[in-house]
């Protein structure tokens, strides 16, 4: 595998792993992102885009989950890699814009980008992530995969392993808590 292909393969696998986790989290708990979006949405158009009350915005969160999942899978299929990269760039631009809005407004609600484990509000981290996604999309557009590059074999397998590893790492507090509880509650055992 050429160096450029390795770079694209790694980058896409990492992006796919992150997107799969983000999509799963939004699917399971859309209300967190909906809450964060409601806080940032200006009152003048909140009603028009469906963010005008308690419990609204779940549809937008689920749509975002669908788009993320589609981008994740598309990046791993050589035939649709470039259109998926375009979708990735669109997502990245949205995240960056929301991060800017969160930073400027001083939003306080947790973004819910990765479900219960993301307790930070929308802000600078989302801008950085968004720009990185746009950069990766540009790399995909620039670099073509040669025939027999091995990308179709390597990328999905790598993305699968990274997805599970990321999911476990993001829930390390829960795993620790469950292990501590199993040890018949040692006094003073800390959980954050």
């Amino acid at each position, binding site marked *: 595998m050429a160096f450029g292909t390795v770079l694209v393969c790694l980058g896409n696998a990492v992006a796919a792993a992150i997107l799969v986790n983000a999509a799963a*989290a939004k699917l399971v708990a859309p209300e967190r992102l909906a809450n964060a979006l409601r806080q940032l949405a200006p009152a003048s158009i909140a009603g028009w885009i469906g963010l005008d009350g308690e419990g609204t915005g779940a549809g937008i969160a689920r749509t975002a989950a669908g788009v993320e999942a589609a981008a994740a899978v598309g990046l791993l299929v050589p035939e649709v890699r470039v259109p998926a990269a375009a979708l990735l760039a669109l997502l990245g631009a949205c995240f960056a814009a929301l991060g800017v809005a969160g930073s400027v407004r001083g939003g306080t609600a947790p973004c819910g980008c990765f479900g*219960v484990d993301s307790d930070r509000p929308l802000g600078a981290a989302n801008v950085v992530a968004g720009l990185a996604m746009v950069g990766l999309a540009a790399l995909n557009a620039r670099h073509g995969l040669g025939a027999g590059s091995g990308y179709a074999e390597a990328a999905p397998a790598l993305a699968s392993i990274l*997805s599970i590893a990321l999911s476990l790492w993001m*829930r390390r507090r829960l795993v620790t808590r469950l292990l501590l509880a199993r040890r018949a509650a040692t006094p003073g055992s800390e959980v954050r």
Partner: protein
Amino acid sequence: MLVVFGFALLVLAVAVVVLFAMIGELAARVPAAETGAGWVRPTDEARLGSVPEVWPPELAHAPDRDTYVLLVLSTVCNSCKAVAAQLVDGQADWDGVGIVVSTASRRNGDDFVAERRLGGFVSYVDESGSWSREQLGVESSPTAVVLRRGRVVAAYAFSDLALLRSEVDDRSRPSEAKEAV
């Protein structure tokens, strides 16, 4: 063949990630939803045997009562909302109880009393929790402090107000000398 295997692995991985996400979400909601039987347990947090030196006007009558229970709640305590609801819905006839609302500011405390419909009970808004901390030795909620003629005789952490009340009633029977005086 390898490509098929790779995508099969991806499908499995996505299913596992969704499962972990569901487990994580459920686990996060467990502390907020108290399941199972209510409980009452003594806590060693309060200054047992002591008598508060200073009484706020709202609680000035407490030292005259044979038995009086102070429920120390807080505006940052999620479980205190459930306690307030139990008080309003199930213990509205309890006249030997006063509520101390520990809070960052007077306004937060007043809002808590209004929102939880505690206006029918004796309540004192304890700004910064300083009175509870200094006079009762309590810095945690929900905590019930049992007073006998103004003296702290017991303190409990609890989830079930009806259980707490029956525990307090049992203790106040003269035949059982369990007071920490």
